[in-house]
């Protein structure tokens, strides 16, 4: 499975993969492109990654989560390239027997991706300016 993709993320397909007979909880986090930042209107986003290292980083984060919580499924996919407003830029999905571990693991995974994975966001503003975050 690829963790970095130029294509739109298909959340429904990921949910179907995450379903598991022993899972009573399935948690999805979708980080979506937002139309504003610091009071300025954003028209679209663009993401860049050091793809090979970002792949390794996400695999490592998912492995850590699977060691820490009893998960039946854990996946994360991040877009690169242009992402339009309200499209998912990153999706994390986990399933587990109970909701507590599913919520905790999902939060851990998205927090770790944002902190560690070599991916960068560029914002395109309505006034024509751009800014790397």
């Amino acid at each position, binding site marked *: 499975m690829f963790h970095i993709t130029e294509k739109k993320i298909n959340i429904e397909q990921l949910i179907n993969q995450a379903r598991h007979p022993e899972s009573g909880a399935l948690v999805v986090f979708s980080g979506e492109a937002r139309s504003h930042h610091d009071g300025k209107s954003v028209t679209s986003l663009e993401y*860049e990654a050091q793809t090979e290292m970002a792949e390794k980083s996400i695999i490592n984060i998912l492995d850590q989560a699977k060691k820490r919580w009893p998960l039946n499924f854990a996946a994360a996919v991040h877009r690169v390239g242009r992402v339009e407003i309200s499209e998912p830029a990153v999706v994390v999905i986990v399933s587990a027997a109970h909701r507590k571990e599913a919520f905790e693991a999902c939060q851990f995974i*998205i927090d770790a991706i944002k902190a560690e*994975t070599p*991916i*960068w966001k*560029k914002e395109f503003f309505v006034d024509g300016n751009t800014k*790397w975050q």
Partner: protein
Amino acid sequence: MEIKIRTYAALKDHFSDSFSMNLPQNSTIGEMKKKLALDKPQSSDLLEKCRFAINQEFAACDARISSGDIIDILPPSSGG
């Protein structure tokens, strides 16, 4: 010795995304960073916040670079 450097995101406002650099044999990541900051003083604050990788493995400032290595300079992550 010659090495190849790749830069990302905001670093590309200061450097091209891929370029070669000549360094004395046995140079460290820290020495390379110093040279880059001298070349482009406006990049020095950002360089201080970056992580470095030698041939796609994270490397500390005292890590030694070999001829032909590819160095990735990774600004603070801003994905998600």
